[in-house]
């Protein structure tokens, strides 16, 4: 009997562990530097998390269908650079949103074609297109940052506020709700989940995996393209530093950390969003506490490893062990 009780406690920790740990970590860091809890700083965190959460949402889309995307960060950077370049050359800023979406869509489609029709494994495909995109970015900006002065209407999206809430966060929230509805309440979305969870079972049930895979990559590509323009609006331009991998690791960590909220380690949009905000808050809290930026990357790496470890443990518990 006693044993069973102990087991229950362990179970509860595994079930709610992620949330408890998140709150504890932020509390400890926040108590050391009370500035962290000021309303202004909380709004700053929400603003900082915008681009990260958008990237994480798009990568979750691909992960749900059972794909993978190494090039998510690179695509964000490419569209960010192109949007900045277009604005500098005098194109109407409103049109850049279309350009970003279009480029993202095309890149998503290319990924999908390579994965579905040429049958290259998802990792290799996206690794290849990642290098293609970083190469294009480097050629496009010629190694220098593309920056511009404040354009009120355009930078509104990334930097503006409504009733104290950052607009970028509201946009992200909107996307999150829409994606959540799509994946949890429409037939196509549920089928995409089924594809990612168990390919063979989905096959037997007559689900056309190829169509859903294409759809997943295209949606994710378009979202990433949009995210790039959002990043441009948030940053007043594009940086020439290659931050594709940094974006990727943050997004992946958010997605997998988000999946540990659920009992069966299922990926979910809201989980991703909460974890994304947590990761932004963690970076923010660590910097406020005086930790150097160099440690932050190590902490992010550890968070990624720990969250995937938790996912694996949970999956093992329900009998879905997937080792290599």
């Amino acid at each position: 009997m006693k044993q069973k009780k102990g087991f229950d406690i362990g179970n509860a920790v595994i079930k709610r562990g992620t949330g408890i740990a998140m709150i504890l970590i932020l509390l400890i860091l926040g108590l050391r530097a009370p500035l962290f809890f000021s309303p202004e700083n909380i709004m700053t965190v929400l603003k900082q998390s915008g681009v990260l959460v958008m990237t994480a949402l798009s990568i979750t889309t691909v992960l749900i269908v059972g794909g993978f995307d190494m090039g998510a960060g690179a695509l964000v950077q490419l569209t960010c650079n192109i949007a900045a370049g277009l604005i500098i050359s005098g194109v109407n800023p409103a049109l850049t949103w279309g350009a970003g979406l279009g480029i993202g869509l095309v890149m998503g489609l290319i990924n999908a074609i390579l994965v579905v029709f040429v049958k290259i494994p998802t990792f290799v495909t996206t690794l290849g297109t990642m290098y293609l995109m970083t190469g294009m970015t480097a050629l496009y900006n010629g190694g220098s940052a593309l920056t511009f002065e404040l354009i009120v209407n355009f930078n509104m999206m990334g930097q503006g506020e409504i009733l104290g809430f950052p607009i970028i966060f509201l946009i992200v929230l909107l996307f999150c709700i829409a994606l959540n509805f799509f994946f949890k309440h429409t037939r196509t979305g549920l089928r995409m989940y089924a594809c990612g969870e168990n390919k063979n079972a989905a096959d037997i049930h007559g689900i056309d995996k190829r169509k859903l895979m294409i759809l997943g990559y295209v949606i994710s590509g378009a979202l990433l393209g949009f995210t790039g323009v959002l990043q441009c609006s948030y940053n007043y331009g594009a940086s020439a530093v290659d931050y594709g991998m940094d974006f990727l690791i943050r997004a992946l960590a958010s997605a997998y950390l988000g999946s540990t909220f659920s009992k069966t380690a299922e990926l979910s949009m809201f989980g991703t969003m909460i974890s994304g905000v947590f990761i932004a808050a963690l970076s923010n809290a660590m910097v406020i506490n005086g930790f150097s930026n160099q440690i932050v990357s190590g902490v992010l790496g550890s968070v990624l490893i720990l969250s995937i470890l938790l996912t694996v443990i949970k999956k093992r518990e329900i009998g879905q062990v997937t080792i290599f």
Partner: protein
Amino acid sequence: MEKRLEEKRMLCPDRILDFVRNYGAVVGILLLLIIFQCIDHRVLRLANIWGVLRNNTFLIMMAMGMTLVMSVRGIDLSVAQVADAAGVLTAFLILNGTSAVAAVGAGLGLGLIVGVVNAVLMAYLGVPALIGTLGMMYVVRSFELVLTNGAQPQMLFTLNHSITGFFLNIGQGDVAGIPNVLIICVIAIIIIYLIKERSLIGRHMDALCGNVRASFLSGINVRKTFAITFVLSSFLAAMAGLMITARAGGATPRAVESYLNDCFVAVYVGTLLSKDRKFNVIGTVVGCLFVGFMSNFFTLQGIGNGTKQLFNGFFIIAAVALGTLRAKKK
């Protein structure tokens, strides 16, 4: 009549496709070399070839480790970072007064430690290799940045030669005109080749690649085999890092990271040289030389990094697409 039939057979798309499948890669590599030579006559000069060989030894060391891991369906994204960190750590220790031998030991030890952590995570805890090693890459990066206080270059050539002589000799010295790095690399190639193709562990790796479940049922210690590849890969990467540092006479944190791209291209191009598009050591070495000549050509022509990245992406996709073409035939 017969002649016409034969002609038909010659031109039928199946045969052309067959040819592309079987010899396309080799012909393509040779063609590229010839094109390079036509554009720039310096490419195939003896001095240049010698230089490419010598500078490629580092890549070969790293890519061989990657090949081992990928041959059991794993992946190690942390190789370049481990090489980086091992070099930086060794240089840092020598600068702070540790003897060169101990510093080399520490560098190699770092490789072993990361390898063991990787092995435990991926093989025994069951973390997907792709994500686990990506996380490790960032942990290692953080370590070396903190160690050097934010990416300060560790210059060894400023020290007295009596202190650094032993270490720098690894990278800059030669025996009878053959550079030390080349000798180390050739020995490593032979050892790794023997491990992969002629030893029990190598056979187990092949079995794992074919069918994990079946090899488990036939009594192979699946986890151990998987773990060994990670340890070997990190150790080789650490060796490569030491060689680079010794050759350059200093280490700059994050300078070696870009080797990861070249590693991937080399390994995937290497699969084309095997009959059933498996990851193999000799193929990887050839792939490394291919990457080496390509980078060399780009440098000679003054073409920037952007174009090189574009080609890297193209080659990875093309190599694997060719491989799938060949697989479809079966």
